[in-house]
């Protein structure tokens, strides 16, 4: 499709090698755990074996007496008096009066070696008084459920709600009852999804150093070095600017590395150990037990539909637990649930609930996959009932520019209709299916995000350019930002170096999250390059003795704009840069803002499955992702986002889940048991990049990172129904559950 539009660009839309590729294929790239420093100590953390327990006493004397142990800390070493989310972060970093989940940190040690630190941790004696716990979200709102924290509810929760409800919301418009009355078919069902983990292959790791003077440094794998700085200093009562945070290369994040889990421990240990640097690396089981999984959800959906597929009314009531702290993405889940559809009568109700689980973190399009699982599953069943084609139904109800979104605001330019049409036209839809095979379709949505952004770029003496960004490169954003900068400056891609810099080098940046790096840092880099161009035109004008207004920038050189301006040969960026010292000093550009013009991204997935009727095992035969990218700056990395999102969604749909025992302990704490998709589980993942340019970005970019994880959950459920006749309303759709559903059908 929009390939013709690419003709206006030299670089945007091409697929050059990524600038950090060489480092990453040779093992040279340095990730969180790959750095060491002279005098460095190693840390280890003691974690609660109980889901909920009062901490009666902690005796650290034996650990402290061990040779090589330089510091032992408990909550007593942290400042008191924090409130709100700062308190939540501190409490999650190190338990206070109670351990709130299996894996909650209760003490930490720094010693001269990793093994010594681990030995010392085993010598710490903790006396616990085990308390009743609650794991399931529906159990947590029962009247007799153990109360996780009195007074945690915010002002949105009306009197009389169960104590574990900490946030409550209702929103919508129109009259849903009237909508249902208009319908030819009204269906209502309940859906459940289990918590899953982002599953980045790199465990959290950092090296922190903090002196008695309150000045510190940290090296850490993170999606956002400024978030790390703000949160660590808040938890430890430090001045924000005194901590300098350098991001390592990052081995995946998917939202889970936008917050802190154990980073302040390395700083607190360092301070107690006289300012020696302290390295802290999580094990995989620490990662699964104590870092951000996503929320689990229980969802009621009711929809009314006419015979022709028109949706007349829709209602969603979602309950989500995000661990022992407020913050499940129930709001986002509700916003996204009906976002693809034009609705006049819609109602949403949401409960954010506490349970004895780790504090949830963002996970790729937080909330959206759960809501889509419920809504897109029910819509599919209704299409079957009314014998309406599921793609036609979606096209009939699809939102377009100017429509009011289900969650309130009006849509700007969006590409849902184009996405659905491209899906309909794809050859995968006409491949015939065999016995026990089924095809499923579902749509998905993510808003995309802007966020605080600060970017600097500078022209070097030879006319090459460096760009300093604050958004860590997780999936090729250095390449896309270099492409846009080079395109703007009119210089080769190879002449631009994009550096992800530490907190001391720029103003505050939000993390690489919300699919914002290529949009926000990219937009800021383009604007900054524009400032440098203005300056270079001025330098050329001064040389020529003409008005700067009469100079234009074409193909990497200043030239007089038209004959009236004077006759001078173009002055290249290298010529201007070579003389900058004597023509006014350094040439650079800078831009900071919360960039406007975020473009939302819709996607549609089509999956073909085969279900073994003997075992209930589902095999993915074919997979298609169609999604609007606005404009793909580096199409290979856009495809990569689509494929990676789909693979994570497939794992969530079929296999991944947090499994708790009756004792409230997490039972699957290694990758063998928390099984993410492996290469032999998946087919090639076909992609179609739809391009409806975002008018809010100089090159039309929409964020593409998140939408792709949303449709797989319902698309696979829909395909399984077609293959088996059985409808699964609970994730994961693992073989035993599918088999039971087939049996229950009498199949």
């Amino acid at each position, binding site marked *: 499709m929009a390939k013709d539009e690419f003709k206006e660009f030299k670089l945007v839309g091409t697929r050059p090698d990524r600038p950090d*590729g060489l480092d990453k*294929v*040779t*093992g040279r790239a340095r*990730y969180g755990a790959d750095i060491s420093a002279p005098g460095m100590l190693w840390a280890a953390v003691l974690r609660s074996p109980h889901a909920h327990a009062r901490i009666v006493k902690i005796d650290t004397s034996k650990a402290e007496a061990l040779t090589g142990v330089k510091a032992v800390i408990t909550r007593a070493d942290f400042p008191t008096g924090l409130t709100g989310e700062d308190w939540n972060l501190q409490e999650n970093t190190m338990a206070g009066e109670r351990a709130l989940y299996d894996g909650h940190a209760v003490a930490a040690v720094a010693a001269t070696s*990793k093994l010594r630190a681990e030995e010392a941790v085993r010598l710490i004696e903790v006396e616990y008084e085990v308390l009743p716990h609650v794991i399931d979200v529906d159990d947590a709102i029962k009247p007799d459920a153990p109360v996780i924290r009195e007074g945690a509810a915010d002002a949105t929760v009306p009197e009389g709600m169960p104590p574990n409800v900490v946030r409550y919301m209702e929103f919508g418009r129109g009259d849903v009852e009237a909508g249902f009355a208009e319908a030819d078919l009204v269906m209502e069902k309940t859906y459940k999804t289990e918590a899953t983990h982002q599953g980045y292959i790199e465990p959290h790791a950092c090296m922190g150093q903090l002196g008695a003077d309150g000045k510190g440094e940290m090296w850490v794998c993170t999606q956002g070095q400024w978030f790390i700085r703000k949160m660590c200093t808040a938890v430890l009562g430090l001045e924000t600017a005194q901590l300098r945070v350098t991001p390592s290369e990052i081995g995946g994040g998917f939202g889970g590395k936008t917050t802190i889990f154990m980073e302040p421990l390395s700083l607190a240990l360092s301070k107690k150990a006289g300012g020696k640097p302290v390295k802290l690396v999580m094990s*995989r089981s620490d990662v699964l037990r104590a870092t951000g999984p996503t929320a689990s959800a229980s969802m009621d959906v009711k929809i009314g539909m006419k015979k022709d597929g028109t949706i007349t009314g829709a209602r969603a009531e979602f309950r989500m637990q995000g661990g022992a702290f407020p913050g499940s993405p129930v709001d986002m889940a509700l916003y996204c649930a009906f976002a693809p559809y034009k609705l006049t009568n819609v109602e949403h109700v949401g409960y954010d609930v506490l349970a004895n689980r780790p504090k949830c973190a963002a996970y790729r399009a937080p909330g959206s996959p759960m809501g889509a699982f419920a809504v897109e599953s029910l819509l599919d069943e209704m299409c079957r009932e009314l014998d309406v084609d599921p793609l036609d139904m979606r096209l009939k109800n699809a939102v377009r520019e100017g429509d009011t979104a289900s969650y309130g605001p009006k849509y700007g330019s969006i590409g849902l209709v184009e996405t659905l049409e491209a899906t309909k036209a794809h050859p995968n839809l006409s491949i015939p299916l065999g016995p026990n095979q089924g095809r499923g379709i579902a749509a998905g949505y993510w808003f995309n995000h802007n966020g605080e952004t600060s970017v600097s770029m500078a022209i070097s003496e030879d006319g090459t350019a460096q760009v300093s960004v604050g958004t860590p490169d997780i*999936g090729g954003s250095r390449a896309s930002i270099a492409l846009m900068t080079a395109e703007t400056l009119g210089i080769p891609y190879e002449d631009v170096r994009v550096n992800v810099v530490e907190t001391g080098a720029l103003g505050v940046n939000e993390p690489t999250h919300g699919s914002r790096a290529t949009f926000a840092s990219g937009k800021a880099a383009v604007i900054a390059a524009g400032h440098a161009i203005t300056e270079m035109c001025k330098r050329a004008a001064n040389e020529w003795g003409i008005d700067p207004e009469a100079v234009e920038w074409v193909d990497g050189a200043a030239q007089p704009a038209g004959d009236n301006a004077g006759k001078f040969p173009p002055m290249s960026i290298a010529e201007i840069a070579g003389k900058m010292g004597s023509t006014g000093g350094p040439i650079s550009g800078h831009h900071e803002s919360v960039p406007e013009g975020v473009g939302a991204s819709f996607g549609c997935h089509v999956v073909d499955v085969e279900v073994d009727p003997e075992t209930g095992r589902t095999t993915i035969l074919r997979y298609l992702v169609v999604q609007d990218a606005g404009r793909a700056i580096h199409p290979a990395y856009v495809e990569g986002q689509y494929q990676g999102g789909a693979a994570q969604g497939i794992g969530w749909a079929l296999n991944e889940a947090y499994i708790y025992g009756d004792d409230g302990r997490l039972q699957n704490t290694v990758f063998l048991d928390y099984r*993410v998709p492996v290469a032999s589980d*998946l087919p090639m993942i076909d992609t179609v990049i739809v391009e409806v340019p975002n008018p809010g970005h100089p090159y039309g970019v929409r964020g593409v990172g998140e939408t792709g994880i949303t449709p797989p959950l319902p698309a696979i459920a829909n395909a399984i129904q077609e293959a088996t006749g059985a409808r699964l309303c609970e994730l994961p759709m693992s073989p035993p559950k599918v088999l039971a559903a087939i049996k229950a059908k009498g199949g």
Partner: protein
Amino acid sequence: MSKVHVTTSVNGDEVEFLADPRETLLDCLRDHIGLTGSKEGCGTGDCGACSVTLDGTLVCSCLVLGVEADGKRVETIEGMADGAELHPLQRKFIEHAALQCGFCTPGILVAAKKLLETNPNPTEEEVRYWLAGNLCRCTGYDKIIRAVMDAAAELRQEAA
């Protein structure tokens, strides 16, 4: 626990270090001889990020003790390129955008190299099963499989 003196060859160079008998080969590579290209994703043999070869056998270095490397030959990601010249697999991974975060990449490259030494003409299915012990959370494997197949084709051509 008293340390053990280990003499081994890593990427062709003779290397000596003192290992605590409890330390894994991965820990020794990373912490004693500064080769941090091999990664720890799990420590339990499930993710393959620590893949190296030991006397030519593909192993998870997190499941091998450092002392077991005594007298053996270890090959890691750091030894894969021939000086400045990348191995075709390394080149193809960059060319096909077969890495996003790149954390799984060293292990996958080491494992894929062993595959192509064992089977120069693998089918897609054979590549998928060979790499089933190497987790990648970012890519959905599509571009990784393509890069390996393409590198295999190039190597066959060179050999022909």
